[in-house]
């Protein structure tokens, strides 16, 4: 009996905050001190309204473009950092890590006026560009770790066997770093999907993603709407991570190493 106290507290602490979200999402009336809400489908219906669907599509599009661009840039940088020793490598690594540490809001305030000047403010392109600031360093770190783990002998053996550079990349390097690239893409998508303040700052409220719609619902005090939108915002990441964690667990040591690497963003 005593042995179950610790795990019990852990489960309660992890899952308890989800309970009111679920209750409010299906609530019509939910006055104090009722423990259970009067059920209503208003929250679910709200998720099907054009404004919310449009915001979800915008979030999805921005997230996919950010993930593709950040993973491509991160893979290239990761190959250089993880696979080569060169002068200035430490400085390059420090520069690439800096945005993981320093809040992007602080630096974006300074260049917002340039986004306005060059016609990027209030556009989806501008929002994608500004979200690359937190996403690219993250993808670079994950990919640098993956390239650093590559077995250098494997490429040499392929070379001895007469494989050209393109064949070596395709048959030796790419399969070895593919799981890490999947993780980088997944988590850069999640960074974009959750981002609020950078989108507001550069998108000016005209580029409406799901977090902006959720913020508006919270601001208007419509708690059932806010709870339903919260679930819509939280479920895709939960499902994505749940699905890929299981897939990556079969990928051998990579999932063990990527545990912390993939979580470098608190």
């Amino acid at each position, binding site marked *: 009996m005593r042995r179950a106290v610790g795990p019990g507290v852990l489960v309660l602490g992890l899952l308890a905050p989800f309970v009111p979200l679920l209750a409010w999402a299906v609530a019509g009336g939910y006055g104090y*001190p009722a*423990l259970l809400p009067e059920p209503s489908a208003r929250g679910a219906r709200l998720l099907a309204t054009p404004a919310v669907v449009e915001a979800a599509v915008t979030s999805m599009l921005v997230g996919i473009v950010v993930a593709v661009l950040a993973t491509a840039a991160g893979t*290239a940088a990761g190959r*250089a950092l993880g696979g080569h020793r060169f002068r200035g490598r430490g400085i390059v690594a420090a520069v690439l890590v800096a945005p993981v540490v320093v809040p992007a*809001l602080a*630096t974006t305030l300074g260049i917002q006026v340039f986004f306005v000047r060059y016609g990027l403010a209030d556009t989806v392109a501008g929002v994608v560009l500004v979200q690359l600031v937190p996403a690219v360093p993250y993808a670079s770190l994950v990919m640098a770790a993956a390239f650093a783990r590559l077995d250098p002998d494997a490429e040499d053996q392929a070379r001895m066997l007469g494989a050209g550079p393109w064949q070596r990349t395709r048959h030796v390097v790419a399969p070895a770093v593919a799981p890490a690239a999947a993780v980088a893409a997944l988590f850069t998508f999640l960074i974009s999907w959750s981002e609020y303040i950078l989108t507001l700052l550069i998108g000016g409220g005209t580029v409406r993603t799901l977090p902006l719609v959720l913020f508006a619902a*919270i601001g208007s005090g419509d708690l059932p709407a806010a709870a339903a939108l919260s679930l819509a915002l939280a479920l895709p990441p939960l499902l994505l991570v749940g699905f890929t964690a299981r897939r990556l667990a079969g990928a051998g040591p990579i999932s063990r190493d990527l*545990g912390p690497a993939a979580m470098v963003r608190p």
Partner: protein
Amino acid sequence: MITRIPRGLRIALLLTPALAVVVLLFGGGLLQALAQSLGHRPFLPPAPLGFDAYRELAADPAVRASVGLTVRVGLVSTAGAAVLGTAAALLVASLGRTRRGFAALLQVTLPVPHIVAALAVTLLLSQSGTVSRLAHAAGLIAEPAGFPALTQDAFGWGIVASYLWKEAPFVAVVVLAALSGRVAALTDAARVLGANRWQRVRHVVLPAVAPAVGAASVLVFAFTVGSYEVPFLLGRPFPATLPVLAYEQFRDPDLAARPLAMALALVTALLTGACVAAYVALTRRLSR
């Protein structure tokens, strides 16, 4: 890949896209924030430059309150996340057959957006929230006012609770990864040598996971100091944390507030950057 390209050029080409993003948008942003905090106005007729914005910040009691709140919330959240996260990791590591399931469960809050965490904590802990209703049902309080104010409160408990829910599992996942087979072998050796359970934790396990706890904690601190959404939703309008205050000044239609916003942004950036740099320097010295 073409082998004809010399190695140095190839490395430069590989690094270009990522560095372009970081140097132009991030580095450029820092330099612009610095210039504008000193009075520079891009695309406008020049104004006199100087440290007026910083002098104004230093003299403003509201800013002092903001710095205090930001550092306090950051430290309390980080310390709490480090302790709870380490405890959770040690607990999960000590489990038998259920260990894998619990390790997976630890990751459940990691992908949850911070805005969602802020709303969940509001609905759970506010004076008319779920915990307050449970207290009412148990006969402990008669009305919402009888429940302590834990959200939009003066201390920032709501902000801390929100960060704890997100960041303690983050620390736990990092620590759990550090608790690899090597630590288990060392613990067994200590047991054979007659160390009791507390001695094993204190002299074997904690030193082994300390670097992981430290690294995760520094990341958490930097994040909690620089994040906007949670303090905006769970804090009071006054005092607000530094990022919230910076954004508020930035939105001010009066352009005279712009240097203040930039100075606040830079102070936030310096606070996080300096802490991480200090941590890196410290660990380098210790590992020598």
